[in-house]
Each structure stands twice: as C-alpha cells, then as structure tokens.
C-alpha cells in the first residue's frame, strides 16, 4: 500500500515501544499444537541459551504443511524452517546469528496473510506491521467516499454468495439507525479453514475491517460470531478487541471515526449455523433456523435493526481497497493429495488459474484426478479447467480438496450427500425429505439417474436456504463428470 501514516496514526504508534527487530517466531496456534510444536519450543529455547528470550510464540502463517515450523526474522530478512520435528534445530540457531540466506517460502501473495503468523500478539507489533493504516485513511474521508472505494476495488462477499459489498453497505446505510454489523466467522463448511487462520494470526485485520465498515455504513454495534471450535481464534479476537478498546480505536478517540460497540460471540457448530439469518436467530436466542427473506437483513436484521452481515474475510479484504489497490485476492484453504497443503492467498487477476495454485502447493497436475471445490455445496473441477483464469464468482468460500488419480468418486459423493442429510435443519420439506432420499438414490446412481435429477431440481428450486439449495450440486457435478465411475461402482 502506498499510503503513509496519518498524524493520528503516527501518534498512536508513538505510544508503544518498537517491537524487537530480530526474533524467532515459532508458529504455534492450532496447527502447531496439533503436531506437538510445544516440544520444539522447549528444545529451541534450551538451544538458544542466553538468546532464548528472542523466541516469540505466534500462529500458523498459512503454511500448515510446514508445521511444526519457525521463522527467523532479522532486519530485512525472513527465513522459515519447516518440519522441525524432522529437521535439526541448529540451523535455526545459526540463522538467528546471521548464517542463512533469505529463503522465505511464503504461501502465495502477501496481502491479507501479510501479518498472519508474524505477530507477537501485541497491538504494538500489529501497528508496527501496518495495522490500522487503512482505517486511519478511511476516517479522513466521508462515508460515501469509503463505500465508493470499496465499490471501485470490486470487493464482493467471500462467504460464498459473492454479493457486492458496497451495495450491501449502502442498502443498510439508507435505513435509519442504529445499524448493526454481524461478522460471520462461523466458518462451518467442511474443508474451509481460512477465517480462523486470519483471526488467530492477525485479529486486528478483522477489527480494522469492522471499523472501516462501521464508518462507511454508520454502524453502532458489531457482533463478531466466531466458530465455537476455533478457540484460539476466539481468544485472539477477544484480546485484540480489548487492546483496540484500550487504545481508543473503538470509540474513535485514537484515529477518528464513529464509535462502535463490539461484542464477540461463539457459535456451537452445525453447517447451517453459518447461514446469515441463522446467525441472527442464534444471537437473538431463537432456534437456529433460517428466516424467510424478505425482509432482508439490511432492512430488518438483528433485533429488527438494519444489519450488514459480512464474512470475516470480506471485512479483512476491506482493509486493502484504498489507493491503487492490487487485484483482489481470495484465500484458498487447500488440502488433500498435495505436498504442501495449507492456506494460500491467490490473486484473482484474470491470469492466475488452478495450475498456478497447484504449483504453489507443490502438486503435479498430472497426478490429480480433480479438485473438490466448495465441499458439500460445491462441485468437481477437472484438469481441463486448470488453466482457465480464476473467477471470484465461482470460488465460493474457497475450500479445495485435491483428489488423487485413484480417488473413489462415488464414495466421496455419497459422503457429501450424507453430510448434507445430517446437517439439514429440517425446517423445510424439500431439504428435510430430499437430502436423505438423495443418499438412498445414490446407492445405485446409474439406475436412479432420472429420479436423482428430478429430486435435485426440486431441492434446488424449493429449499428455504442454500444448504438444501446446493445439496444436489456436488452430486450433479459428479454424475456429469464421472459417469463411468458410478457405472463401475454398481
């Protein structure tokens, strides 16, 4: 970003001591903890002796494949050491002393992920690495101008439905206040682990996005709704909200802008509980089922107030839209049969295609049968499509599982259908009755093809929410692309 600090931001930064410029970041967090990074930290501290205090525990930086991992940071220099369960720690110690080349193997473009896994958890460190720069500028502009910038950058919803963000903010702003903002960080779609990485690793990015939206749409109160299992993300967001409040960022006293009250809540699971109107019901203490629309949330949402509901990544991306923004990026949580599974930030620039994403993850496209894009609400992507430039509209929430050549497509298809049947909330008939029926018909998909097609049509057209509306999508995709697999499975 070419913009420089405003005087107010410079004053805020000046209130904190500068963080150490040389340190060893151990990527702890949910990913590191799942592979016993704690043991590595102890050995590393011992090996560093008097320099043990330079060890900083931080979150996963998106290179999940590398865990347990550490990054040595010296002025102008970063070097990540992967798989410290297999690699000797001496190299880390030597690097801290200056003996290593800059060989940072990052996970793609460094936009939203720039600070993820590189922060010590303090507001000072976040500020030193650029947090609240976009907000400092946004508050010097009129709300309309901020919405205009969001519009020009082409920002659209990253939660799956791709709604134009500027339009959503405008619709809410046109209604009388007080207005609400609900941050959807429920992230309950199987295969998706992007929001929790950003929240865990750089929670101030989200709060900055919330404050920008609050200024633009005149929001009085924001509720950040975090997935119940993502405990580290919740903890990081709680801490960051407290830090931001104490620094005067939430009441506008530090940088300007409208005061906004922020509350953090946890969800309790269930795929449908990520659907926006279900979250509204959940926060109000109602049964977590979808609401009929209209009324739309921007007219009558949380507690009947005009409400903007945005995915966490959408709000994080709102921090990147000012002054000559780079092409939009999408966070792609990628897993399956690849050497380097993890979280990738991919430019959606009309050039980058799946082949580029697979290359980042170290995959040989010739060993890939297909991608599963969007899990139980998604579709399969064949190698023919790997060189077609990515289109934001087709990416959904971005979850990708790379399927190897010997993958059992009918088995995966049945598993996705069964998942949807389990997760159906039962509120509407097409989905409640249709999802288990689809599972039954898939027992002999070839013979039942006509019935499956008819059932999917009903579910797509008549379901109350998109859980049922999209439940047939991966099934239809599998049957269209891999008919021979289903024939062979009879």
């Amino acid at each position, binding site marked *: 970003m070419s913009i420089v600090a405003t005087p107010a931001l410079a004053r805020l930064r000046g209130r904190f001591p500068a963080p150490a410029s040389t340190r060893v970041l151990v990527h702890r967090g*949910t990913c590191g903890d799942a592979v016993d990074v704690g043991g590595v930290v102890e050995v590393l501290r011992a090996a560093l002796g008097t320099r043990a205090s330079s060890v900083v525990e931080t979150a996963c930086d998106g290179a999940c494949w590398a865990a347990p991992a550490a990054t040595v940071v010296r002025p102008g220099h970063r070097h990540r050491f992967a798989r410290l369960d297999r690699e000797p720690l001496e190299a880390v110690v030597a690097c801290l002393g200056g003996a290593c080349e800059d060989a940072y193997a990052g996970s793609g473009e460094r936009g939203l992920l720039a600070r993820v896994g590189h922060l010590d958890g303090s507001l000072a460190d976040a500020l030193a690495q650029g947090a609240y720069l976009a907000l400092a500028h946004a508050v010097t502009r009129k709300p309309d101008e901020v919405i205009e910038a969001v519009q020009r950058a082409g920002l659209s919803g990253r939660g799956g439905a791709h709604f134009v963000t500027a339009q959503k903010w405008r619709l809410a702003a046109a209604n009388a206040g007080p207005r609400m903002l609900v941050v959807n960080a429920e992230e309950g779609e*199987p*295969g998706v682990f992007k929001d*929790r990485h950003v929240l865990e690793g750089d929670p101030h990015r989200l709060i900055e996005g919330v404050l920008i939206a609050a200024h633009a749409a005149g929001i009085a109160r924001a509720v950040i709704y975090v997935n119940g*299992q993502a405990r580290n993300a919740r903890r990081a967001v709680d801490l960051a909200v407290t830090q931001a409040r104490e620094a005067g960022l939430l009441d506008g006293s530090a940088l300007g802008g409208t005061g906004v009250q922020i509350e953090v809540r946890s969800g*309790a699971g269930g795929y449908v509980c990520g659907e926006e109107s279900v979250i509204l019901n959940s926060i*109000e203490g109602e049964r977590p089922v979808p609401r009929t629309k209209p009324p739309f949330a921007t007219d009558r949402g949380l507690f009947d107030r005009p409400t903007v509901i945005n995915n966490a990544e959408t709000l994080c991306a709102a921090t990147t839209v000012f002054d000559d923004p780079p092409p939009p990026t999408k966070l792609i949580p990628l897993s399956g049969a690849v050497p380097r*599974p993890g*979280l990738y930030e991919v430019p959606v620039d009309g050039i980058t295609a799946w082949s580029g994403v697979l290359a980042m993850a170290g995959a040989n496209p010739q060993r890939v049968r297909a991608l599963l894009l969007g899990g139980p609400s998604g579709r399969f992507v064949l190698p023919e499509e790997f060189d077609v430039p990515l289109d934001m509209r087709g990416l959904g929430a971005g979850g990708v599982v790379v399927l190897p050549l010997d993958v059992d497509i009918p088995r995966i298809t049945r598993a996705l259908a069964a998942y949807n049947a389990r997760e159906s909330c039962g509120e509407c008939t097409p989905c409640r009755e249709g999802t288990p029926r689809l599972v039954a018909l898939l027992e002999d998909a070839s013979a039942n093809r006509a019935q499956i097609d008819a059932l999917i049509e009903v579910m797509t057209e008549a379901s109350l929410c998109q859980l049922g509306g999209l439940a047939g999508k991966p099934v239809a995709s599998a049957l269209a692309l891999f008919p021979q697999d289903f024939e062979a499975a009879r």
Partner: protein
Amino acid sequence: MADVLPYDVAAPEAAARLAEATRAVEAHPREKTALLPALLDAQHVLGWLPRPAIERVAAWVRVPVSEVYATATAYSELRLERPDPAVWHVCTGVACDLAGAEALLAASPGRTARIDCQFLCALAPVVADPHERLVGRVTAEGLRARLGAAPVESPR
C-alpha cells in the same frame, strides 16, 4: 473443554459442579439473547448439558425448558448426553478420508468414533482426543500408542 471428567449426576462432587455451572450461567444478563452463551458456559464447566443445567439456563433467561431443548439439539457441539471419556474421534471428512481415516478407525475399534471435518484438513488425518484437543498427521501406530498412553479416566 477443561481437563475434567464429564459431569456425573451420581458423583460426590455433583452438587458443587452444578453450582459452579449455575454461577457461570447467572453471570449472563437475564435475556433471551444470552441463551447460547449460557448453554456454552454451562457445558464448559460440566462437559455436557444434563437436564438440571438446561433447567438452570431456561429459568435464568426465562425461556421454556422445551424451547431450550429445541435450541440445544440444533447445535452439533452442544452435548445432551454424557460423553464417553475414553473415546477419541477420528475425522472422516474428505481430506482425512483420503489420508487414511478408515485405517485409523480399524486400528482402534471400540475406542474411536467418527466425526465430521475438524477444520484442520491440511494436517490430515486428524483425530480429537476426549478433551477435544486436535492431533494432526496421525498414523495407526501413533494413535494406538496415544490410546495406550492415555489412561481411561473413569470406569466405563
């Protein structure tokens, strides 16, 4: 979940545990909007939501018990039955299935159950221990070793 046994209605400390859960519930405002946060806090203390806990929440936020049950059953992470403290959950989501989840289940019959995606897909296959701590890149031998090392914490 804390490192404690799931609440046992017959245990000597049952009343104290329930009192602690009640205190957590009553720290919330007496409003319907506190329903889920109160349920989560009660479960955090008890490990699950026995009927007395549901009743405490219902009374506190002034919602009928039947409605609290209707809500609680809709969230997959709220437990209305006492969890088995010996059982580990093996993720059988797509990435974990590709990485050999079935072999993990087969390697430890009786001590494992299936669970949907745990959102740690890049470290597949993934299991969750009885305290819901996630372990990634699990092998069958590794799981057996962990099961052997983890004492069963209560009579089964």
